[in-house]
């Protein structure tokens, strides 16, 4: 009886935790997971993704025997992954993580986003697409900043890691995951958490930058009403964008192609069932798989590093500079068009759809209560999705 009890006790999480010399790191990870759950549920910071990520983190950091572990992040950090071993001995999250590792989930998320996105404001005001390009400034600025920090000996990021961190500036979670799983898989949990946290903090991060870079008069500019966009234009748009992007940057084709396919489902008018599936059930299922498995890669060994802190700092820089890039380009467009463009819509060029556009609307409305910038800001906002996917494609084609 006593032997049985002792054996049982030796197999519990308590015993495993105490046997581990780094037990305190595991405890810290559990606290981090609980804090993230608090932020997601109570503070409503991107709960749809932060909650699954935090719960995945919680599951993966529970003390458990290696052979029966729910997730083995170390299997996926090697140059050659033993897929046979994963399939025959992997835990539930190991199997689900294959969707991240093989680059399946992010494009499927993009399919759903495409089915939910109205590109009408962008088609009605085509020049606003340039704001989506300008808002990628933070991506390339942060790429250089990460390399500079490495040169100074503060961290040790190579080109691949710098590119993965920099893509946080695109403010697009699936894109950040898609690039990082290919270029720097070890940094995936830290980058995913940083990317989604900053996306949730858009309403706090962007307004001070927007106000600092614009005058009261500029913020009060009322833009002309957008023209009506025909059905034909909306159907042609996804087809044309796919052809242009896939020809110039084939590495961006999975993301942009699926985004545009989802949009074609929506706009064609004959694929309602597929459109509804893509923007509801499919994206929800993939979000669960993606969130939980990405969170589960955040074990004490990979997450509790100096690099994680630096990624959080660099992510903030990336996000802020991207916002500034969009606003400054908006100011340039304002000058060129003789005051017809409100520079505030530039900040929506970071993707973070539709939150960034709503921030432009709210900041603009504080200066002029009768000003409705939302639809004008949706143009650069959806352009930002395309822009960040193109930036990701550029990095992948250079470093893959």
């Amino acid at each position, binding site marked *: 009886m006593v032997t049985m009890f002792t054996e049982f006790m030796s197999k519990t999480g308590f015993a495993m935790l105490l046997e581990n010399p780094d037990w305190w790191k595991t405890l810290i990870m559990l606290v981090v997971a609980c804090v993230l759950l608090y932020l997601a549920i109570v503070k409503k910071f991107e709960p749809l993704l932060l909650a699954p990520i935090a719960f995945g983190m919680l599951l993966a950091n529970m003390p458990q025997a290696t052979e029966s572990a729910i997730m083995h992040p170390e299997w996926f950090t090697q140059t050659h992954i033993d897929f046979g071993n994963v399939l025959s001995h992997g835990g539930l999250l190991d199997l689900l993580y294959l969707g991240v590792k093989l680059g399946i989930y992010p494009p499927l998320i993009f399919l759903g986003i495409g089915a939910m996105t109205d590109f009408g404001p962008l*088609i009605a005001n*085509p020049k606003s697409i340039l704001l989506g390009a300008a808002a990628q400034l933070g991506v*390339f600025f942060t790429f250089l900043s990460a*390399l500079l920090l490495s040169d100074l000996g503060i961290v040790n990021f*190579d080109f691949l890691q710098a590119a993965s961190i920099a893509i946080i500036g695109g403010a697009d979670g699936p894109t950040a995951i898609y690039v990082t799983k290919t270029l720097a898989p070890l940094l995936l949990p830290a980058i995913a958490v940083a990317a989604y946290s900053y996306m949730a903090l858009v309403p706090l991060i962007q307004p001070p930058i927007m106000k600092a870079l614009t005058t009261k008069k500029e913020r009060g500019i009322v833009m002309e009403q957008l023209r009506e966009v025909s059905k034909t234009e909306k159907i042609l748009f996804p087809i044309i964008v796919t052809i242009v992007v896939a020809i110039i940057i084939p590495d961006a084709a999975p993301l942009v192609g699926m985004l545009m396919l989802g949009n074609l489902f*929506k706009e064609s008018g004959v694929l309602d069932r597929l459109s509804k599936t893509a923007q509801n059930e499919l994206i929800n299922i993939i979000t669960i798989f993606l969130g939980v498995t990405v969170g589960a890669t955040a074990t004490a060994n990979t997450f509790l590093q100096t690099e994680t802190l630096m990624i959080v700092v660099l992510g903030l820089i990336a996000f802020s500079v991207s916002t500034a890039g969009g606003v400054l380009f908006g100011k340039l467009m304002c000058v060129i068009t003789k005051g017809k463009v409100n520079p505030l819509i530039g900040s929506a060029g970071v993707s973070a*759809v539709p939150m960034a556009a709503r921030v432009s609307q709210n900041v603009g409305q504080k200066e002029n209560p009768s000003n409705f910038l939302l639809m004008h800001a*949706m143009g650069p906002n959806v352009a930002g999705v395309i822009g960040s996917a193109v930036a990701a494609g550029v990095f992948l084609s250079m470093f893959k």
Partner: protein
Amino acid sequence: MKLFVEGLPIAGIGFLIVFFVLAIIWGVLELMKFIAQVGTKKNNKADVTENTVMPVNNTDDDVDEEELVAVLTAAIAASLNTSTYNLKIKSFRRIGNASPAWNDMSRKENTETIF
């Protein structure tokens, strides 16, 4: 500074490629816009001809329209913080709601914030 110096041309070229790709899409969209405007002008001409032969609306429709104009005037006045006497609605047109659910949600939330 070795990595930084090596990274400078990569970042520069990368940023230019992003601009280049989106600028091409901009050009194509402008072309589409031009074609759409030409098409609209042709349609407008056809509409004028059709309108001249359209029957006069019946009385019920006129009453409904008056109510709608009153509601629209009041809504615009409230949004602009002005009196309805300063506004005159010359025409209105009903458009289909093709916007996605999150746009509708965003508009609803904005409206709730204001009122």
